């Protein structure tokens, strides 16, 4: 599977949950290291309470405080780690600095 082919899904909106707001964001994470990089970064983002990325569909579920941050800020943050976030394109410098296996084609040998 090539990392460049992104599913063109409609962007979701935040929904209210007990702990605050919940947003599901489509990313371009392709491996365990990508998952860690995104989760790690969002964990320390202001207003974010938790971040869990599912590698099967590459969707990160973020629970956050709507008074401290917005879903758009969270998407922007993901692009700064080097990954696409819904409609937002990844930051090219951050992408260049990703480890080899997290880049496009890094998993082309996967069957």
């Amino acid at each position, binding site marked *: 599977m090539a990392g460049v082919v992104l599913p063109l899904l409609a962007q979701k909106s935040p929904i209210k949950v007990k702990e605050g707001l919940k947003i599901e964001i489509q990313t371009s994470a392709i491996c365990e290291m990508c998952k860690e990089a995104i989760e790690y*970064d969002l964990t*320390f983002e202001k207003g974010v309470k938790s971040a869990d990325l599912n590698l099967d569909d590459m969707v990160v579920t973020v629970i956050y405080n709507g008074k401290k941050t917005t879903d758009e800020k969270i998407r922007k943050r993901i692009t700064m780690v080097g990954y696409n976030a819904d409609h937002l394109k990844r930051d090219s410098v951050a992408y260049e*600095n990703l480890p080899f*296996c997290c880049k496009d084609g890094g998993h082309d*040998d996967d069957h």
Partner: protein
Amino acid sequence: MKKHFLIFLIITINQWSLMAQEAILGMVATSKHEPLVGATVQVLGTDKGTITDVDGRFEISASNGDRLIVSFVGFDTDTVEAETGKMMHIMINESAEELGEVVVSSGSTFFDNMESKNLEIITEKELLKAACCNLSESFETNASVDVSLTDAVSGAKMIRMLGLDGKYVQINRENIPHVRGLTNRYGLGFVPGTWIQSIDVGKGAGTVVNGYESMTGQINLEFKKPENSEKLYLNSYINSFGRFELNGNRARDLNEKWSTGILAHADYFGSEIDQNDDGFMDRPKSRQINVLKRFKYNGERIVGQFGLNVMRDEKAGGQTGFDFGDDHKTSPEYGFVNNTTRIEAYGKTGILFLDKPYKGWGFLYSASFQDMDGGFGREPYDGKETTLYFNAINQNIIGNSFHQYKTGFSVLYDDFKESYSSLNLNRQEIVPGGYFEYSYLPNDNFTMVAGLRYDHHNLYGSYWTPRLHLRYQSGKNTVWRASAGRGYRTPNVLMDNLPMLFSSRNISITEEIKPEVSWNSGASVTSEIALFNTPVEVAIDYFHTYFENQLIADMDASFTEVFLYNLRGRSYAHNYQTQLNFKLSEKLSTRVAYKYYDVKTTYSGVLRRPPFIPKNRFFINTAYATKYEKWKIDGTLQWRGKGRFPDMSNHPITDVTFDTETPSYFLLNGQISRGFRWGNIYLGSENLLNFRQKNPIVDPENPFGTNFDASMIWGPVTGTMVYAGFRYKVKRK
């Protein structure tokens, strides 16, 4: 150094493959995601193996479920299950023990299941739980090593293992003897905590490769490495007593093969703390500057590292009012001065054989000079030690990888000068030695390591050191171990018995002091069981140490003398420990341990317990951490049982009631830290229950009189202390 003589390594790299097998594709990378070029990948139980290419990739034929052994010089070997039909991503960690073996677990502290020795590994994660300050505090959250004050004046902390003094533990830094000789008492304070990457705590007899000095155990320190530690690391620490610390580490690559790093530390403590109002500072004023410059070379056939360490440490303690620079010989106050300068250059070189990963040469070498001058009250003390050390290790196999060996020779040169008052104790040791260690590894479940070394000591003649380690794994998680071995050590008459110098006692050395000789044997079992649906790691061990000779410092025979003589009679220690590690959830874990010591030594013909050492100890540590350690809370509660207090019934001071035994007490430490992208901040406390030994000094009003004694210590001298600090890190790309 290198690590291609690994346990369970399958040797012959052969290209044949079986028809029924599939091509496994994968990639090997560091935990920082850098691909590893030239890492060895082998199929367990076969002779198939390959090496990763320039992108860290490999292809090997194996069946689904086969176990692959992945190894690389300087990294922990890992065993993973082969998975067909996908690209495998295997991350391996920088080795905690460079001359180490297979580690298949991770976490903050864990027992190494594949290791033939009883080895507990304390990682950096665990070390962060005790934020302050140096090696002596690094064991605060560890149940196997006890830490206590040596006396009521110097502030020095000593460790204790298997119920015996830490001087019987061989403390190495990257397998080169480090805290020993002149600095065996203060030396733990000369290793800043921020320099340490991990600590291996090995109980019982160690390997013959590292010498004859491990009598009750081996502690190996791994410092942060130039090639993989943070680009920049800054730490600052301050506590409520007024101690201030600054630490800074840097690391960078010079080119593809060379990397370099610097580890720097400074601390200052200039306040006077006297919580028990006895006129004595509870800990001395102190200041230290300590710098280590390191280089690492990673070539194709040669790997090496070199370091230069320069340190200056000054302490000024005793009665309040005594300050840095004051002359203890003329001061009206009782002054304690200790100024230490230490310079050490060391290195390691490994020669590798790419096509024969089981074969190699390693050379360890160091040269150090340490100078310690100062005084205790009016009496001057001076110590100087020059040490040269060289160890050449060859490792290979006999026929196949079931039979491996390490052999080599070493030379130790130690020029030791110590003087106190009118005593002069000088010696010059030259000890060449050779050793052979055979490992039998017929399968995954059994290991036998048998070693023998012979050293010729210029002063004391022949040293024969046999050591044996057995390991047997039954089932998936249960490992049984047994070990036995002999150890030797030259006592440092004054520094080993530092507390006696903080007293008015006359030092009587009644005969020529001989080397200390001991036998240690023990057995242990570690297993993972499920208790109330919770995975629990259980470790039970028993060790017995028996002395053929020991330097006895007898402070029971008289109130005005301390007699130093060779052991006449029996001296032994039985140690029993049970530890349970509960992993209650992803976030919460607890460690519980109980220890029982039965230690007895013959003093003036009477077999009795050494003073102040409790028989029973209890330990509990609980750690809570959220994902990616955004929040971390940690607490350690220790309980120490009753100990023997020297018989004071006929003491000339009659207006004070002396203890007849030392009481049992609790100690509680805790810390909370908050992580950020750039590092973390922390806030913690030591001795939260504010427990103190009320009158640690006998007759503190008359320090120059005949009854003064600050050696009778069994508990903390200072009460609750609060500290705070931060760690700032710039990671490498």
